[in-house]
């Protein structure tokens, strides 16, 4: 069944291709190729939404991306519910389900519209001025209520089930916009063989050719030429044509981001297909052919459904075959609206009158209208409209004064002229200049390798636009190294004229006390609001914008900015360029989070790093913790054990028998070369020259300021080869730090650094039985204390694979760390485990590792240090080579603050009640009975329950801490103060004999 306002023979859609859809639950018929807006209009539906602030009935203003009013929710299913979709860009598909927004209980009867009646209360700045007092009411009363009333559309409340993709692309020439100018530019560039990308936000190329009826290019009707040209371009190997793709951001050095919509127009999208794709395009040259956006006229009650832009009405007629009304009024200040009137008239629709704001319009367009019998009211203004849910009449009055008359209309087309779409040009940091003659901001100074062509450059004549686009396309290709080709010629003719236009209010009636002449439809900003902002002291357009919210809605003021600026300038009595243009920022139109995130969700949100034994630990029921991107086994609970019980058991088992621990995540750097020891001397505080091959040393790395940066055990494998270990979290930055000094401060040293963190799986076997466990697995290494004492390293074979075996201990027990090539890590682990089970060993995780090292007073860099701790503060002054004349940090250590008395030093704390476990980070004071704020003299850095000590243990940084040994200090907590005794940092085996034994 043909919809009531579909005109037989008009438009380019195929009547047989019907698509059914619903709007607010009612079923309608549209055609394939419709937008939701054209399909609604075909059914005579103009009322599609309620405005943001006043809940005024709103219709469809435009036929494109600039639409401020017709925002609807499109729901495919519970999870696929998209709010604020512009009906003018949503392509119709069979089964589309759209719902209007911002109304209750229904679109036609909306309780919220009461705010329209109370509108005088809600003028610009209302919120800023009103909800000032009492202050406490903000959080409890004002803000919750404002939030309740505010917002547009409902956000989906389920996870997004769709897929999104992303792609980097590179081309010589990127052309944005596939209207006549963009196509011509792409054609010229493509002929040179250069890589060309052409994108356009619409489903079909053509731009303004969609509605311009009088255009001939290359001997063909404009629209047909556009389709054939785009198809020819798409068929070329060196050209990528991207329809439904918005260039939304123009960044540094010709990086332009495109959002491609792949499935939004499909009735049943392939679930495999991504919904949207982000293109990050790097272009040698960018050609902007973004066209121009028509402005509405600003007059009282200019927002009733049925009032729309003139060119939009032409699109609906010439492309979609839809009449926006049967008795249409036109209110314009430029010539292009006349073409709309003539097209509608030719289609058999009534034109009630053309109200021309200009005093004496003349030229071909005006003559043609008069010749067609259309009444032209020159020098008139529309001063008001009538109609509740749809415009029913316009009030027209001579601007010079005189009687007003009411003219019945069922649609009112307005055009105040065309605003060049300089958004992307402006984003590129190009500077616009105000052309006073045409009252437009035009590209003036280019900041990047780009060119504007056509309407976005202010070029009015089609043939000029096509010529400059061909030249720009050829030049861009030539400048990026394309083959020299003579630029093609295209003959372009048109009967259209785009001259004329005005900015600001049509006449003073728009500023009358009760008038609502909308400048910004989406944010409900009126001409009066902007005048008020100026009266209240706003001088810069940036301030006016923020005070009134003009242009700050999701449409970013595409139709409203210039009017707002003109009204502000007029009120300030200053020229427009002095008031300034607000800055355009990405995105040009809203972009979904999905597009920006692309593949980076779920498993690809961030890399998850696992060690070779991860699966084994998982099978054992290990609980994992995140350490940076690594997953590390935290503890291995057995049946019935909670974390505390598991950790206590693991801690006891290691010291009584043995424990096996995956230490693979430690950073490992191989330092190789004849100057390796010299380099190590510079990077670490310790002396290295005399360390014998086969021996290890605990090293401390400082930053130049003297503070601890990292630490680790370092083994010397050969005179010219060190195996350095770093903290897990420090692996990358320590290598960077070393490379920095090596490359830029000590470039003459013959030494090279290689990360081997992932080459080696590291299996730590710790405890009195560790040697018995390791021994049967080792070939060719004598593990006796005499042959391989504590702090030594050997190369040999473990389980038959090449290994580096360290005798080291981070537990204070006899211990080994077996390094084997990572792919053998699991197999060797399983072999070690089998041996370990014979000797009562357990697997232990990072929590037990932390407790055991704290029992021995071993620090964790980043936990017991915080970037302001020196080796001496940490009780590690012994690790500084006293005879050394240079190492990174040597001068920093001599800074006055670092040698001053009273620095915070690492100490142990014993709580008076051994069962009390302190909180890490808790503050420490001398006496608990001082007034708040108390003087804090330190804080707890590490604190655990120690099953081996059968009491709590803690490490703390305390002012002058070592001198306080034996003193009682206090840790004030919400439940009362906790008394602690200052002790040394070693809680177990003070002499350290266990590691050697």
């Amino acid at each position, binding site marked *: 069944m043909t919809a009531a306002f579909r005109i037989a023979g008009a438009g380019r859609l195929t009547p047989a291709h019907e698509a059914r859809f619903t709007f607010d639950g009612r079923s309608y018929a549209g055609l394939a190729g419709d937008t939701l807006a054209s399909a609604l209009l075909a059914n005579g539906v103009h009322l599609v939404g309620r405005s943001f602030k006043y809940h005024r009935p709103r219709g469809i203003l435009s036929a494109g991306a600039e639409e401020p009013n017709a925002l609807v929710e499109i729901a495919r299913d519970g999870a696929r519910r998209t709010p604020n979709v512009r009906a003018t860009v949503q392509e119709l598909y069979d089964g589309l389900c759209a719902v209007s927004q911002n109304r209750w209980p229904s679109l036609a009867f909306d309780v919220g519209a009461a705010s329209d009646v109370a509108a005088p209360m809600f003028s610009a700045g209302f919120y800023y001025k009103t909800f000032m007092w009492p202050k406490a009411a903000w959080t409890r009363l004002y803000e919750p209520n404002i939030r309740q009333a505010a917002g547009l559309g409902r956000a989906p409340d389920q996870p997004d089930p769709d897929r999104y993709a*992303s*792609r980097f692309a590179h081309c010589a020439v990127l052309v944005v916009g596939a209207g006549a100018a963009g196509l011509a530019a792409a054609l010229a560039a493509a002929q040179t063989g250069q890589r060309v990308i052409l994108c356009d936000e619409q489903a079909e190329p053509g731009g303004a050719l969609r509605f311009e009826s009088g255009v001939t290019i290359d001997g063909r009707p404009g629209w047909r030429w556009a389709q054939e040209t785009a198809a020819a371009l798409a068929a070329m190997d060196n050209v990528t044509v991207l329809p439904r793709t918005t260039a939304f951001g123009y960044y540094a050095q010709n990086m332009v981001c495109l959002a491609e919509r792949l499935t939004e127009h499909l009735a049943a999208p392939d679930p495999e297909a991504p919904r949207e794709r982000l293109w990050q395009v790097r272009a040698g040259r960018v050609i902007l052919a973004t066209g121009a956006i028509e402005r509405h006229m600003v007059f009282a009650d200019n927002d009733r459904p049925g009032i729309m832009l003139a060119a939009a009405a032409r699109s609906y007629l010439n492309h979609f075959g839809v009449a926006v009304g049967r008795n249409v009024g036109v209110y314009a200040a430029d010539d292009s609206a006349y073409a709309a009137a003539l097209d509608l008239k030719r289609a058999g629709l009534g034109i009630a009158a053309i109200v021309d704001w200009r005093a004496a319009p003349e030229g071909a367009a005006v003559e043609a209208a008069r010749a067609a019998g259309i009444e032209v009211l020159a020098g008139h203004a529309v001063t008001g409209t009538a109609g509740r849910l749809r415009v029913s009449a316009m009030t027209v009055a001579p601007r010079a004064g005189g009687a007003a008359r009411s003219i019945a209309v069922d649609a009112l087309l307005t055009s105040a002229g065309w605003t060049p779409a300089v958004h992307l040009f402006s984003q590129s940091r190009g500077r616009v200049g105000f052309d006073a003659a045409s009252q437009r901001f035009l590209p003036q100074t280019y900041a990047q390798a780009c060119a504007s062509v056509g309407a976005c450059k202010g070029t009015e004549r089609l043939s000029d636009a096509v010529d400059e686009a061909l030249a720009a396309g050829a030049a861009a290709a030539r400048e990026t190294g394309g083959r020299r080709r003579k630029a093609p010629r295209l003959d372009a003719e048109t009967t259209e004229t785009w001259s004329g236009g005005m900015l600001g209010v049509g006449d003073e009636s728009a500023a009358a006390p009760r008038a609502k002449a909308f400048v910004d439809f989406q944010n409900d900003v009126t001409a009066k609001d902007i005048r008020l902002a100026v009266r209240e002291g706003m001088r810069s357009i940036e301030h006016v914008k923020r005070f009134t919210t003009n242009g700050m809605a999701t449409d970013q003021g595409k139709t409203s900015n210039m009017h707002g600026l003109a009204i502000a300038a007029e009120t300030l009595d200053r020229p427009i360029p002095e008031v300034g243009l607000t800055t355009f920022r990405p995105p040009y139109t809203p972009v979904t989070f999905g597009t920006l995130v692309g593949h980076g969700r779920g498993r690809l949100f961030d890399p998850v790093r696992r060690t070779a034994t991860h699966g084994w630990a998982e099978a054992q029921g290990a609980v994992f913790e995140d350490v940076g991107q690594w997953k590390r086994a935290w503890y291995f609970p057995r049946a019935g054990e909670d974390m505390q019980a598991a950790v206590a058991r693991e801690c006891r088992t290691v010291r009584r028998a043995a424990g096996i621990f995956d230490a693979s995540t430690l950073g490992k750097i191989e330092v190789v070369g004849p100057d390796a020891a010299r380099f190590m001397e510079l990077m670490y505080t310790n002396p290295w020259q005399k360390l014998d091959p086969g021996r290890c040393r605990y090293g401390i790395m400082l930053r130049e300021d003297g503070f601890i940066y990292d630490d680790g055990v370092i083994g010397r494998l050969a005179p010219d080869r060190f195996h350095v270990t770093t903290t897990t979290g420090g692996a990358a930055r320590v290598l960077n730090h070393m490379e920095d000094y090596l490359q830029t401060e000590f470039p003459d040293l013959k030494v090279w650094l290689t990360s*081997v963190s992932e080459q080696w799986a590291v299996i730590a076997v710790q405890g009195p039985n560790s040697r018995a466990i390791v021994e049967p697995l080792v070939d060719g290494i004598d593990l006796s204390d005499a042959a391989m004492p504590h702090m030594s390293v050997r190369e040999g074979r473990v389980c038959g694979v090449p290994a580096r075996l360290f005798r080291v201990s981070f537990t204070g027990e006899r211990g080994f760390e077996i390094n084997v090539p990572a792919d053998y890590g699991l*197999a060797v682990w399983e072999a070690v485990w089998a041996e370990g089970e014979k000797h009562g060993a357990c697997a232990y995780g990072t929590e037990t590792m932390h407790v055991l090292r704290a029992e021995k007073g071993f620090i964790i860099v980043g936990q017991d240090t915080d970037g302001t701790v020196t080796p001496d503060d940490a009780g590690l002054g012994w690790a500084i080579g006293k005879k050394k004349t240079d190492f990174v940090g040597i001068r920093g250590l001599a800074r006055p603050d670092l040698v001053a008395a009273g620095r915070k030093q690492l100490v142990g704390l014993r709580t008076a009640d051994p069962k009390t476990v302190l909180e890490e980070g808790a503050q420490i004071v001398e006496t608990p009975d001082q007034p708040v704020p108390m003087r804090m003299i330190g804080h707890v850095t590490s604190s655990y329950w120690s099953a081996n000590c059968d009491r709590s243990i803690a490490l703390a940084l305390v002012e002058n801490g070592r001198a306080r040994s034996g003193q009682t200090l206090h840790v004030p907590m919400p439940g009362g103060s906790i008394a602690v005794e200052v002790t040394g940092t070693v809680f177990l085996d003070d002499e350290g004999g266990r590691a050697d034994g």
Partner: protein
Amino acid sequence: MADALVRADVLAGRRAETAGVSVVPGAPASRLSLRAPQAGIAALSKALGLALPKKPKGTAQDGTRAALWLGPDEWLVLDAEGVDLAGLCASVRTAHSAVDVSHRNVAILVSGPAAETVLAAGCPQDLAPAVFPVGAASRTVLGKVEIVLWRTGADAFRVEVWRSFSDYAFTLLAEAARDA
């Protein structure tokens, strides 16, 4: 005892295949991180049996062995037969650093007409043949991880990635394969 040990390939069993592309793990190989000043290039080339490339993005290949230029004094040497590459360099007297990284990296092979497009999902470099021809190699990024990328054929790339990042890299390439 060695034959009793199972070598666990971290990407074992992973495979992504579409009409345009196949993404599969590479076989184990020996790998050498080689660092040397200009003075050592000749001797090391001789020891390894292939001329170490001196130009950015350059590679040299001879049979199952290849050397990839990574930096002015850095190469990644690969050998598909598992030859002890560090051992080959041991006799070279000029100062250099040869470190075995056979297990540090994992290879992912991306091949098929859509290979370039698949890699472009995460690699910001221009991979067009004119810029990244067959035989070119470069350290670069793939999404959020670092890789070494080597174009081994018109439609074939080898991705070398650190072991623990290989799951991420493979998953990203497999996802991208669905969109190519």
